[in-house]
């Protein structure tokens, strides 16, 4: 369970140590891609807690969402419409939903564990 987070941390450390900076005109794309990545990661965690985790869905979802978000931002720049706001909105809403569900599952899990302990003690 904790190995993915170790890898996430490892990725962050790696990114900070390599000192890579992308040009300013591309930061919009990366930021929207990062948002999509966040969404997918949290979605994966939620699915895992629900016991419905499918790695194919997770991996394809990650790459597809990230590229779609970047592509949407690109199209928006070309057309002069702030289409990336659509991506921000969609991913933002899903982010909150996923976090809420994860929180609920964690609370329920702990509650059940306590209950089980109590019944075992009895």
């Amino acid at each position: 369970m904790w190995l993915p987070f170790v890898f996430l941390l490892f990725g962050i450390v790696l990114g900070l140590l390599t000192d890579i900076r992308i040009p300013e005109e591309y930061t919009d794309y990366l930021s929207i891609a990062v948002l999509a990545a966040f969404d997918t990661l949290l979605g994966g965690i939620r699915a895992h807690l629900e016991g419905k985790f499918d790695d194919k869905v997770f991996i394809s979802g990650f790459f597809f969402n990230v590229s779609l978000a970047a592509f949407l931002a690109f199209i928006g720049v070309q057309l002069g419409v702030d289409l990336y706001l659509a991506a921000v909105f969609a991913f933002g809403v899903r982010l909150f939903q996923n976090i809420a569900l994860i929180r609920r599952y964690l609370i329920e899990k702990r509650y059940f564990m306590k209950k089980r302990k109590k019944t075992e003690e009895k």
Partner: protein
Amino acid sequence: MLTLRGNGDYMKSKYNLIVLLVFLLAGFMIAVQFQSFQKPKERDTRDTWELRADIQKQQKTQQELYANIQQAEKIINQYQYDSITQTTKTLKNSVQQLKEEAGLTEKKGKGVVFKVEPLFQESMKDVDVQVYPVLTQELLSRLINELNKYGATDISIADERVISITPIRNVNGNIYVNNHPLPPLPFEIKVLAEDPKKLLSYVEYSSIRDYFAIENINLLGKAKDTIVLPKYDQDIHLESIHLLEAEDANGE
């Protein structure tokens, strides 16, 4: 470990690794994004010499401000402690001084007279150009800016006094100064300055003469000891400036 539904242990470990790599990639992206938004702090890279120069500049400003305050206080004193006749005199003096500063009076002094005239070159005869050179409004504005930069105190263009709100406009191809059309070339631009010779040499060596030459206009300056500038002969309309109440002005 994440529960995975692979076919056999081989598939399981393979997908597991990819999932972990996705997490790694996501972390990497976040770090890069974070770093791209971190701007390096601006450091104060001035050395001692530049700092000293800056301080001197500020001190000079301070001294000027002190001098201004002193003068203002002197005028206040005159108003407060002198008799009515003297107060009236002071008031009249102030008004006169303000009028002079605003350009509402004739002004005499040393300065430079620029003659703006067509520049006929020898080569022009062969080309047979029949167009009489015309001054453009941008060029005139530029000249006035340059003159002010080089220390001109008062300017008049073809007997139109240039004050701080003088408009220079292009109306149907004619240049209007103070809402009066400029006469065709040649005309004179009179400039008052503290040091006319310096101003003249500045203008001689600046690129403004080249710009005039491009329009086939010659700008010939001559320093003179006494020049009389005409007064600004129209009313000054200040639409957006209002009088404060006396109490407010005193801060009571």
